[in-house]
């Protein structure tokens, strides 16, 4: 037996052929007025940077975590003296500096991508990205400053 099963049909007398309900449009549909190409390679470089920095970061961060948290007594050994000792060598200074920059730019660019994907309104998108850029620049500058001006004899 063929039959239509009665379901809750929210028929509403306020809509009709002459005054239909509004349809729900997806955010940012493509139209003839969508922006034309900007002729930059920015997105390309961003994409390549994410792959390259990702590979480097795996090495940098895992080694960093091993030294800080696992080897030689684990986290309990980390003290001011330990940090001062490591940063006495330009090698570890450079290591930490590269790690800081790569991690912040990698994470920042990743978040920028997520904001581009998920922020629906242009103003939300803009302000979220401004917040992100400010936080990234601040952290990178502060970290760099600390690495370069670190004074082991501070009292």
């Amino acid at each position, binding site marked *: 037996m063929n039959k239509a099963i009665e379901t809750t049909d929210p028929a509403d007398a306020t809509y*009709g052929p002459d005054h239909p309900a509004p349809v729900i449009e997806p955010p*940012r549909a493509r139209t003839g007025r969508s922006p034309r190409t900007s002729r930059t390679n920015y*997105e390309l470089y961003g994409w390549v940077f994410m792959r390259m920095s990702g590979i480097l970061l795996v090495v940098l961060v895992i080694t960093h975590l091993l030294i800080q948290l696992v080897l030689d007594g684990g986290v309990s050994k980390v003290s001011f003296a330990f940090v001062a000792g490591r940063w006495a060598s330009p090698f570890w200074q450079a290591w930490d500096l590269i790690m800081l920059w790569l991690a912040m730019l990698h994470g920042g660019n990743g978040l920028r991508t997520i904001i581009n994907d998920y922020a629906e309104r242009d103003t939300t998108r803009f302000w979220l990205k401004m917040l992100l850029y400010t936080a990234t620049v601040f952290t990178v500058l502060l970290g760099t400053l600390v690495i370069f001006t670190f004074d082991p004899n501070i009292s």
Partner: protein
Amino acid sequence: MATPTLEKTSGTAPSADEHLVTVTFRIRRFNPEEAAEAFWQDFEIRIDPKERVLDALHQIKWELDGTLTFRRSCAHGICGSDAMRINGKNRLACKTLIKDIVGLKNGVGTKPISVEPIKGLTVLKDLVVDMDPFFQAYRDVMPFLITKGNEPTRERLQSAADRERFDDTTKCILCAACTSSCPVFWSDGQYFGPAAIVNAHRFIFDSRDEGAEQRLEILNDRDGVWRCRTVFNCTDACPRGIEVTKAIQEVKQALITRRF
């Protein structure tokens, strides 16, 4: 000649619909002339499980509810007009057999089959969506032959190997199953989407075409291939079996090798 007729008449009447099963179709309905909200409606029908979802939709429209609205034209997987979300996956209704998507127990479907419009495009009525943004992205990648110089006096020849290079992407029927299965497209309709990239790929890798650089430049932009997250929904959705994600990756690769 006489034998088949004989066999037919010898079949007993009660068993005529023995091969039919009872299946419930749960269809997403929306009619802006009646209500602002979309809702689910169940239709229980008796149908041969070897029929397609499109046949079931026809049966519902012709026998139960004439207001059910959907697009179809060829009914044989060629025109690309009946892409819809069937049991949560983008499929062509005319290529999806009911027996492949329903669990049966004693001739009754264990679960309803859900049918909804494809996502990421404006729903106009029931299963019909506004395809304009989709075709706009298609137009924006210039899906036509671009050449320089004078028109040749004879046809443009191509080796079999050169033709093979882009064979996969020539199969596209512009059904939008891929683009409307892409989560990046759902959240940002300005993204060109897999279908436009597939059709750009078809010309970028055509040895007779000279507009590859222009198309690559368009796809190199903010809404181009770099937004692809290799989710593979498009490859899964494509009713033509095109390796959509692979085509997108090939465009990325072409951009990288040309720019470095």
